[in-house]
């Protein structure tokens, strides 16, 4: 099945959202989560995930620390920070505004 590209500029938002719903995830888990919740519509390319994570780290939206997985493997876990939560709210809001505008132009109704 062919996957859709994640619309540009929305990957950050999706990552933040996944971290919002789950306390702590490591990189692979974030990718899997997005794929699963999007019902496999989206496939996260690793090439874009890690740069995105670094961006979020620099901006102070997430924090990261090394820990152990269930199988006792080393992994780096990311947590959403309060600033990140605020940023998520901001991005969701602008996304909603943008998509309703598009919907109006295309005369579609957006399912909420």
């Amino acid at each position, binding site marked *: 099945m062919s996957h859709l590209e994640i619309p540009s500029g929305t990957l950050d938002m999706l990552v933040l959202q996944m971290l919002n719903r789950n306390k702590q995830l490591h990189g692979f888990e974030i990718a899997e989560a997005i794929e699963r919740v999007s019902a496999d519509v989206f496939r996260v*390319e690793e090439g874009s995930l*890690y740069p995105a994570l670094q961006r979020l780290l*620099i901006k102070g939206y997430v924090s990261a620390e090394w820990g152990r997985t269930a199988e006792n493997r080393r992994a780096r876990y990311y947590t959403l920070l309060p600033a990140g939560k605020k940023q998520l709210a901001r991005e969701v809001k602008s996304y909603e505004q943008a998509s309703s505008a598009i919907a109006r132009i295309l005369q579609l109704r957006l399912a909420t």
Partner: protein
Amino acid sequence: MNAGELFRRLKLFVRRDRMTRELEEEMRIHQELRAERVGPEAAHRRFGNTTSIQQQSRDAWGFRFLNDFADDAGFAARRVLKQRSVSIVIVAVMAVGIGATTAMFSAVDAALLRPLPFDRPEQLVMLPAQVGREKSKLYADQISFTEVAAMRDLFTQVAAYGVGGLNLASADHPIRLKVGTVTTEFFSVLGAQAARGRLFAPEEGKPGGANVAVLSDGLWKREFGSRSIAGLTITLNSRVFDVVGVMPPSFSFPEQSDVWIPMTVPLTSASFEPFRDYVAQTTIARLSGGVSTAAASTQLLARVQRTKVLRNAKDSTRNAQWVARVQEIGGLITPFRKVLARDRTTPLYVLLGATGLLLLIACANVTNLLLAQAAVRRREIAVRQVLGATRFRILRQLLTESILLSWCGALLGILVALGALQGLQAFMPPQLLGLSVVRIDWRVLSFSIALSVVSGIVFGLYPAFGSTRRDASESIKGGDGHGTTAERSGRLRQTLVAAEVALSVLLLVGAGIMLRSLEKMVTRDLGVSTTDVGTMELAFASKQKGPERFRILREVVERLDAMPEIQAAGISKTLPLATAGEMLVGIEVPGVTEERIRSSGIIMNEEFASSGFFQALQIRLVEGRLFNASEDVAPSKSAIINSTTAKLYWPDTSPLGRTFFMSGDTLIVIGVVADVVNHFDEGRVAQVFHPTGGTAFFTATIVARSNRSSNATVGQMMEAVRAVDPAQPVFNARMMEDVRDDSIAPRRASTRFLTIFAIIALSLSSVGVYAVVSYGLAQRYRELGIRSALGATGSNLMLLLSREMVWTASIGVAVGLAGAWAAARVLERLAYGVDVHDTMTFVLVPATLFAATLLATLVPARRVFRVNPSDVMRAD
């Protein structure tokens, strides 16, 4: 970007190595987990180019530029260290080139280019006016100072100055000070202000005006402890002067004066005191706005001619001759700066030219070395290209390397320049000493740094462009490639070597001529013995009258004569080789016309000497006798002449017993002595010696020959003076050898510099040759191996390699010699006793260069013997 973000970025930058490793680990784990699902190959493919993802992630850190730069710099540094010997050579070559240029430029700037630290210096000019003496008329070819000072439309201000010496009374030791005797407008002409107090007032410039003095900052601090000038006085030659002002530390014109006193207009005997026999005056003026030097010159000449009083035919002739001379030298008025720098410009320009040559050689060398390096690194660059480095990245790395080398060269060069500047102080015209300090100023510094950066870029870029343009795979495949680019590069290198050799020839010829001149100077027969002779000068205060002065001199000589080590002691007015300027005199001999004398071009001066003088300096007696005891103390009509005078005036007979007229007296020749050199730059001079009996001395010289060679002689002489009169100041007490050395010193300094330049040039050229041959060997390794396998012997191969270089060197030498021959005239003024087309120099120089080139070629070429043909075959 807010503060928190900045902080996080900084933290990341500092820890970037660790962060990079963690990122790598994180991505690896991710890939492993993916592999568990879809298998390792799929996972790998899905992940993509790990390296570039990491790069992108690090991009998010935002320090890409800095990061890359740090990487480049690190890489460049490692590379440079790996090729230590070549890098050291390149840095050293650059340092020398940049250092020499900076130092020379600073010196020329200080002497010639920097504006004089006077107000609006372009308006300052010099003119040949004289402040006349009281009760005496000026000659027909002299211009009156007062007349010129009145020409307010041409000159806003006019001033005259002279430098003399006066004794400062001091408790323990009398000191002789440099005294600037100046008319009252002197300071305002130059636009100088006093740092404390005031300058001279107009009344003080009139005869009989108050005795006032202005101190220099140095003297004020040294002798007066910077105390307040209210009520301060200074005693010079037993006369008391009121100190009215102190000049700022930067002002010590003319000639590092310690103190200034007024020059009255007209001159009185009081203001005459600081000078010896005559007042060496210079008159300067500030041109009125809008008046050009040429216009003022013409105007001045016209006006002077109109007011001149020509009393008789002799005056008219003299006047006409004077006008002719003035037209010849281009006018009456000279810009002041030209006057100050006059004697020193030639050596400075010559050295500047030499520096330029050295810089060119250095550049050629560096280019050569970098080109050779680039040729060898072609393969490495090609491999990097294939691995994915963009051309830009490679260029940037090569550039960083070159710039790193250039910066090291520049830094080192600045150190070299600082060192060289000490030596260059010798070149400053004496009048500018203390005014224009030779130091590295920021302009020169930035010029040097810019030069190094530009050279880094240019020389780094050329090979870089050449290397990356080529098809990468071809470079990896092919061995050394005999493509056109390689040939072109090789030809360029050969041309550079030829150029270096040619330029070196120029420098070597210049140095050779200077060295020969110096040798001639040093070995010249001076007519006096310079070993074991002590000399000193005495200056008298005006309150010591003639007989008093004479008594002191005689008593000192008697004391010296009494000492067992002293073989002979004598008195004279001046000392050979130490005289600054001389009065030109003339004598009249019945039967000898003035025409004949003038056409010979020989000038005449007069001297006063006691019998002991000739003996102490071992001046050879040719005919007749020296002065006797009575002539030494009492007036007489005797005179001694030198050989030149004898041949000039009495060519066919012996001059002994002949009479001649001089200054209104009839004198009789009692002896002829050998010629003595008073000045290295003089031609033959006719001299007349008067006996000391009845002579008025302003200042006098005493010489004494000791049978022991030691500096103790000078001490003994000073002791003798102290015993006769403890308050009598003595100065310039030194051995005759030092007098001679001092007069040679400037020449010696120029020669030393030129020689150093020439040696450096020779070394650089040799290094260039060595490098080209070495790299040539490396490049043609395969070819040489094949030839060897085909039967060529080691010597055959050496010949092959050397032939090209010898041919190149020959061309270089030929071109260089031709250039040197043509350009040698530049050195004419500096060459002493040596023809600028000196055969020995023009033969030795090419011989030396050939020898050096041969050596530089054969040493690396010898490695050809180690070429192993089987190695070469296998390597492919």
